[in-house]
């Protein structure tokens, strides 16, 4: 049990690699950097494999029980210092451990994240060989692996959020890896900011859960949610799950927060493969699947998720139909496939969603790495209009990418067929067929997926060469360190789907069986409530197959073949200035699609505040400016007006006091006393003693004279 008990070492290995790069990377040789960083991730993969193997033994002894290992208490105490009040008034202790949770769900993520991560690290050795900042690149990649593994293995939402933010940071750092290029740093900012919007939702959802359940530990919340104390459609749980879904929308690039992902292609191609296709963008799916017990209690959230997922799938697929940048097609394809996953989650098929994440990780990583190999061969050219006829020059890339294309197009027996078909079947059957419209959306998307993927393949590898002679001269197959991961991933893209071989085709769907303990319900109370029980029961009823399932299967294979056929017809021998079938049918539609429905422009108008009409800023920033104007002019104006009025009344009252009270009433009598009385009186006081004496004498003479005369 050594590996299982020390599962915390799995994220720490790449963290150590990142730390070494941070402190000493600059001085290290490229070989040392590769050895340390790739070694750390490979070791983590081996460790993870052994840990999952031991977990199987553990699960055999404790059926349905997740393995939880708490290393130490990270936040909160047991002394009640960090208590808060729950929604019902009861006190609850805020508590978050550095704890690690291994159950089938995290085991799957753990394996493919470390596995695909290792392959992409190896690939990067070749791809980044001629780039500056080699150690920086690998340090970031290792930091990303650490964050992603923390996210996956966290046993509570808080630690999960740490990983969540960590992968967001690494995504930002790696998109902006070529930071001297303006578009790259802008794209990095865009990714970071759009992700923050989602993260705000995640945080609020987390707080709501803490307030409602009094705990942030995943196992406890799941247990409580399944205990039957909470009603289906509980408004607070609905709110919490919707907020969590907002977080998932940001991280997993769903409408309306998907805009960052296509721009994230500014980063080096291995980054696009690892972070923006295989692992990080599935964090939203993982988080929702982890919270499945909550989502099951909130049918409203599930419906929202299914609808948004389906429409994201369709929306992104239509854009991908006409894009010319090879990585951009793949980026929109990723958004579209993530939409599928959320459709699956939304109709309650958590296992199918996780299964699609699993297969998608292989074939999409392969597609991106293949695209990287093409770009490498084309001396940095990414525009498919300038490619063509590469299949003879770079055969390994060609064949591996074709396998991935078959996988994503849903052609059996490649991986994508099983997972995509599972999702479509679940959409068809869920809630007694209430979601058949969503099935139709998914079906049309599947058709488009086949078309744009084969369009990409034909434009890149077939037709006539359209590149300049100089570029053509340089075309070469990539080094071993790049092709070997491609081949391994191709093998996975062929076989990964076999784990979920459906019952209807005589398989046992081991993948779903493996995940059953995570998604199965524990509460017999709720089993009675048909609809919800069906939502959550992990879809056991499909063990008996219906003819419809075979029919749908053939139908979706037909869609894939039709997409292939259309692409074959249009692009098989595309020469210089080849015609786009969509542009010929409807130029307006083509322009709209080529400009991505003008969503970026709309966001520009609505949110960034760069657009102005005259001096008036538009959108939210304009609203902010208007609010600022209102605040500074009207609110502050009122305040200042009140102040001005007070000052005015002060002036008036001081004038009154000075001139009326003091002037008339106080000084008036004083003046009266002064002028008529005091001036007259003071005339008598001239100060010469002898004059006083003279007056006395005159008086004396006067009196004498008066008495004498009388």
């Amino acid at each position, binding site marked *: 049990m050594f590996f299982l008990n020390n599962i915390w070492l799995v994220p720490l290995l790449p963290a150590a690699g990142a730390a070494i790069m941070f402190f000493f990377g600059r001085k290290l040789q490229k070989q040392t950097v590769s050895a340390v960083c790739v070694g750390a991730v490979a070791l983590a993969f081996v460790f993870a494999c052994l840990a999952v193997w031991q977990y199987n033994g553990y699960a055999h002894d404790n059926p349905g029980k997740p393995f939880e290992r708490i290393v130490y208490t990270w936040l909160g105490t047991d002394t009640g210092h960090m208590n808060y009040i729950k929604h019902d008034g009861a006190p609850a202790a805020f508590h978050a451990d550095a704890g690690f949770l291994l159950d089938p769900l995290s085991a799957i993520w753990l394996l493919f994240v470390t596995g695909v991560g290792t392959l992409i690290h190896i690939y990067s050795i070749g791809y980044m060989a001629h780039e500056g900042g080699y150690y920086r690149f690998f340090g970031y990649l290792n930091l990303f692996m650490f964050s992603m593994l923390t996210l996956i293995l966290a046993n509570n939402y808080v630690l999960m959020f740490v990983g969540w933010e960590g992968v967001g940071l690494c995504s930002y750092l790696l998109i902006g890896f070529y930071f001297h290029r303006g578009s790259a740093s802008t794209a990095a900012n865009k990714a970071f900011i759009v992700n923050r919007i989602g993260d705000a939702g995640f945080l609020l959802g987390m707080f709501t859960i803490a307030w409602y359940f009094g705990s942030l530990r995943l196992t406890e919340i799941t247990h409580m949610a399944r205990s039957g104390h909470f009603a289906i459609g509980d408004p607070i749980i609905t709110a919490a799950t919707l907020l969590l879904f907002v977080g998932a929308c940001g991280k997993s690039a769903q409408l309306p927060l998907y805009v960052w992902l296509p721009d994230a292609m500014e980063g080096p191609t291995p980054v696009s493969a690892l972070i923006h296709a295989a692992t990080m963008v599935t964090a939203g799916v993982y988080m929702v699947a982890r919270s499945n017990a909550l989502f099951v209690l909130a049918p409203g959230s599930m419906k929202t998720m299914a609808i948004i997922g389906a429409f994201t799938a369709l929306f992104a697929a239509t854009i991908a139909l006409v894009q010319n940048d090879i990585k951009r097609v793949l980026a929109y394809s990723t958004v579209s496939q993530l939409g599928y996953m959320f459709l699956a989650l939304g109709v309650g098929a958590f296992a199918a969603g996780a299964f699609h994440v699993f297969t998608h990780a292989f074939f999409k990583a392969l597609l991106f790495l293949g695209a990287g190999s093409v770009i490498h061969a084309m001396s940095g050219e990414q525009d498919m209009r300038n490619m063509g006829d590469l299949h003879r020059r770079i055969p390994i890339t060609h064949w591996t990418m074709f396998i991935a294309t078959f996988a994503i197009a849903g052609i059996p027996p490649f991986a994508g067929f099983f997972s995509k078909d599972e999702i479509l079947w679940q959409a068809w059957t869920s809630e007694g067929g209430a979601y058949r419209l969503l099935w139709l959306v998914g079906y049309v998307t599947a058709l488009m997926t086949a078309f744009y993927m084969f369009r990409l393949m034909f434009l890149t590898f077939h037709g006539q060469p359209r590149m300049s002679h100089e570029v053509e001269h340089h075309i070469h197959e990539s080094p071993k360190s790049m092709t070997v991961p491609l081949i391994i991933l191709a093998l996975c893209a062929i076989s990964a789907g076999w784990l979920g071989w459906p019952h209807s085709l005589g398989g046992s769907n081991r993948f779903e069986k493996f995940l059953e303990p995570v998604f199965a319900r524990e509460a017999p109370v709720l089993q009675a409530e048909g609809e919800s029980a069906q939502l959550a029961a992990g879809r056991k009823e499909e063990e008996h197959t219906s003819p419809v399932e075979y029919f749908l299967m053939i139908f979706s294979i037909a869609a894939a073949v039709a997409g292939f056929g259309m692409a074959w017809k249009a692009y098989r021998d595309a020469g210089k200035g080849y015609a786009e079938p969509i542009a010929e049918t409807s130029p307006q539609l083509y322009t709209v699609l080529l400009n991505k429905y003008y969503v970026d422009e709309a966001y520009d108008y609505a949110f960034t505040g760069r657009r102005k009409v005259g001096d008036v800023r538009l959108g939210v920033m304009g609203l902010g400016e208007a609010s600022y104007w209102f605040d500074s002019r009207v609110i502050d104006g009122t305040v200042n007006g009140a102040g001005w009025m007070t000052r005015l009344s002060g002036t008036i009252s001081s004038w009154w006091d000075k001139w009326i009270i003091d002037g008339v009433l106080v000084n008036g009598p004083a003046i009266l006393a002064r002028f008529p009385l005091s001036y007259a009186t*003071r005339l008598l*006081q*001239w*100060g*010469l*003693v*002898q004059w006083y*004496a*003279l007056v006395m*004498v005159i008086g004396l003479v006067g009196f004498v004279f008066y008495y004498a005369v009388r």
Partner: protein
Amino acid sequence: MAPISTIHYLVVAAALFILGVIGVLTRRNVVIVLMSIELILNAVNLNLVAFSRIWGLHGQIFAIFVITDAAAEAAVGLGILIAFFRNKETVNIDEVDLMKW
């Protein structure tokens, strides 16, 4: 040559009084003013003594009181004068106008 009668004394006294008054009103030196006051007082004394020829000794007794009073008055007046001189370095009466508003 008629015998000296009361009226002669009164004339002499009146002359002394007028001299004194003129001295008080016209001289600038405070010492001379005080001396003129003595003249006035002595004119009064002369009257008192002259009338005591007719009315008895009361007048003479009163005259002695007046002399005493004059002595006291001169002492006080000279004292004030010395204090005043120390402050203003003058004994001119027209420079004594501290009471002026």
